[in-house]
C-alpha cells in the first residue's frame, strides 16, 4: 500500500500520474478546492465487447502510454508499478483509468461528445471510494463531534448538547422503529439466519446464551477483528433488551445465528469465498442469508445460479446494493451479488426516509435503514454507529426472519414476495428504493 507522505506543493503535479498514492490524490483534490469527491482522473468505459478496440484506439490513435491489467499477476494491478503510464486498461470489465492531464490534453473529458463509431461508451470522473459501512457524511460528523468535544472541554457551556446527532427514541434505534419492529410479536424463533461477513465477536456480552453455528472460509478464526460483521449480525439477530441505557438494535432476537466468515479482518474476500459461504448456508437450510458485501461487477452467472439454488431450497439471499453513488450527481449501479435477479438487492435510506446519498441504484428490490445505524461492535467498544447499504441489508434480513417465523409457507420466493408486498411505499423511483421500506409483521 502507498505510504503516507508529508503534504507538499508537489501533490497536484503528482496527481497527474496513475502511480500516485491515494493520500497524494486527496491532498491534490483538497489543494484544488471545489468538488473534493473527485480524484482528477477519468474512467473510460468501452462499449460491450469493444475493450480490445478501445485499447488499440488509446494506444495508436490517441497516443496514450498504456498499461494492460493482463500483464499483472492475476490481473491484480499494482498502481505503484505503472511507472509513467497515462492509462491502465482493464479488459475484463471494459474500463480504462486515465490520468487527468493526459485526458485533458486529448480533449477526453466527461463533457466531451463521443463519436458514434467510437469504442468508447462513456467518460466519467473517478471518485474517491469510501469504505462500505461508512459514508462521507459520517466522516464529517465524526470530525464535527471531535471538534465539539474539544470545544466543550475548553469550557464553553452548551457545546456538548449540540454534539447530539441521532438520539435513540424510546429505547429503540430509529431503524427498528421505522421498520415497525418493536410492536411485532415475532422474534425469529426457529429461523436460521446466516450472516456472511467479517465474522462475529463471539464473546460479546449482549449475545451470551445465543445459539451460534460458525465457519470461516478465509483461513482466519471466526472472531471478528474488523467490526463490520459484528455490526450487521447485531442488527439482524441482536438482543431484545440490552442491559443499561442501550437502545434495542437487534431484530430477530431468538434466531439461530450462522456466522460465515467470508471476509478477512482487513475487509477483503473473493467471490469463491462468498460462494463457499452461500453453499454452506444452503446446506444448513438457513432460511435467510444476509450478505452486506459487494464487488463492482456486472451480474455474475455464479451468483445468479446460487440464488436460484437457494430459492429452490427455501433460502432467501439478501444483499447490499452498494455505496458507490454520490447523489444526486452520480447514481452507481448495484454491485454483485445484489444485481443478480435471484438475489434481493437492498438500498439505504436515512431517518427522514430519504435515499442515502451513497446508495446504489438500478436493480434495487427493497430499502432499509442505512444511515447512522447503531448496533453491536467487537469488545471493548461494544457498540458503534455507522452507515451504508451494509447496514440496511440486515434490517431486511432481520424482518425476513420474523416473517419466516410467522408462517412456515413463507420460504424462498414466497418470503421474498411477502417482503415486497408489505414494504412501506416511499415517494421515490423503484430504481432507488424498490418496493419501499421493509416492514416487520
Amino acid at each position, binding site marked *: 500500500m502507498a505510504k503516507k507522505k508529508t503534504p507538499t506543493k508537489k501533490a497536484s503535479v503528482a496527481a497527474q500520474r496513475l502511480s500516485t498514492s491515494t493520500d497524494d490524490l486527496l491532498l491534490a483534490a483538497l489543494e484544488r478546492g471545489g468538488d473534493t469527491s473527485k480524484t482528477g482522473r477519468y474512467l473510460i468505459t468501452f462499449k460491450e465487447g469493444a475493450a480490445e478496440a478501445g485499447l488499440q484506439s488509446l494506444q495508436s490513435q490517441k497516443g496514450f502510454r498504456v498499461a494492460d491489467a493482463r500483464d499483472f499477476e492475476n490481473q491484480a494491478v499494482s498502481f505503484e508499478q505503472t511507472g509513467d503510464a497515462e492509462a491502465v486498461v482493464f479488459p475484463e470489465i471494459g474500463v480504462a483509468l486515465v490520468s487527468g492531464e493526459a485526458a485533458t490534453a486529448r480533449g477526453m473529458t466527461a463533457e466531451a461528445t463521443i463519436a458514434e463509431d467510437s469504442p468508447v461508451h462513456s467518460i466519467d470522473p473517478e471518485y474517491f471510494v469510501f469504505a462500505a459501512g461508512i459514508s462521507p457524511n459520517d466522516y464529517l460528523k465524526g470530525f464535527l463531534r471531535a471538534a465539539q468535544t474539544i470545544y466543550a472541554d475548553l469550557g464553553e457551556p452548551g457545546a456538548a448538547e449540540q454534539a447530539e446527532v441521532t438520539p435513540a427514541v424510546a429505547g429503540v434505534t430509529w431503524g427498528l422503529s421505522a421498520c415497525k419492529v418493536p410492536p411485532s410479536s415475532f422474534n425469529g424463533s426457529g429461523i436460521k439466519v446466516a450472516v456472511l461477513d467479517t465474522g462475529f465477536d463471539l464473546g460479546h456480552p449482549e449475545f451470551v446464551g445465543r445459539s451460534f453455528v460458525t465457519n470461516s472460509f478465509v483461513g482466519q478464526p471466526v472472531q471478528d477483528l474488523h*467490526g463490520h460483521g459484528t455490526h450487521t449480525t447485531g442488527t439482524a439477530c441482536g438482543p431484545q433488551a440490552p442491559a443499561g441505557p442501550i437502545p434495542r438494535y437487534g431484530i430477530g432476537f431468538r434466531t439461530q445465528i450462522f456466522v460465515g466468515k467470508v471476509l478477512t479482518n482487513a475487509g477483503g474476500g473473493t467471490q469463491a469465498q462468498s460462494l463457499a459461504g452461500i*453453499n454452506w448456508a444452503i446446506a444448513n437450510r438457513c432460511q435467510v442469508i444476509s450478505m452486506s458485501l459487494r464487488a463492482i461487477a456486472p451480474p455474475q452467472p455464479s451468483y445468479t445460479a446460487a440464488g436460484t439454488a437457494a430459492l429452490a431450497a427455501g433460502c432467501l439471499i439478501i444483499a447490499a446494493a452498494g455505496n458507490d453513488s454520490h447523489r444526486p450527481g452520480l447514481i452507481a449501479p448495484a454491485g*454483485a451479488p445484489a444485481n443478480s435477479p435471484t438475489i434481493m438487492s437492498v438500498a439505504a435510506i436515512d431517518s427522514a426516509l430519504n435515499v442515502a446519498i451513497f446508495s446504489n441504484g438500478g436493480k434495487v428490490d427493497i430499502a432499509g435503514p442505512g444511515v447512522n445505524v447503531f448496533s453491536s461492535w467487537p469488545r471493548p467498544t461494544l457498540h458503534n454507529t455507522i452507515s451504508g447499504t451494509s447496514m440496511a441489508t440486515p434490517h431486511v434480513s432481520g424482518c425476513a426472519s420474523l416473517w419466516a417465523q410467522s408462517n412456515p409457507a413463507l420460504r424462498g420466493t414466497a418470503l421474498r414476495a411477502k417482503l415486497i408486498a408489505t414494504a412501506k411505499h416511499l415517494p421515490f423511483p423503484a430504481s432507488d428504493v424498490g418496493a419501499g421500506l421493509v416492514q416487520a409483521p
Partner: protein
Amino acid sequence: MAKKTKQPMVITVSGDRPIHEVAHDLRAAGLDVDQVLEFTGTVTGSAHPQNAERLRSVPGVVDVSPDHPIDIGPPGAPIS
C-alpha cells in the same frame, strides 16, 4: 511487471451432470480445482486465462468467469 499466471476462476454448472464428474473433466481441461460447491452448483479454482475456452466446452458448464474480489475496506477507515 509480473508474467501472466493462473488466475482464479468461478465455474457455474448446469446440474444436468453430477458436479463431481464435471469437476473431474474441468481438471482434465486445465483447472486446478479448489472447491466443488454442490449446493450452489459452482466449481472454483485457477487456470491459465487461455484455457478458459476449453473449460467452457466441458459438458455441463454454463459459465466460466474470473473471480471478482470483494473489499469492504479496512475497519474504521473513512476513505479507502
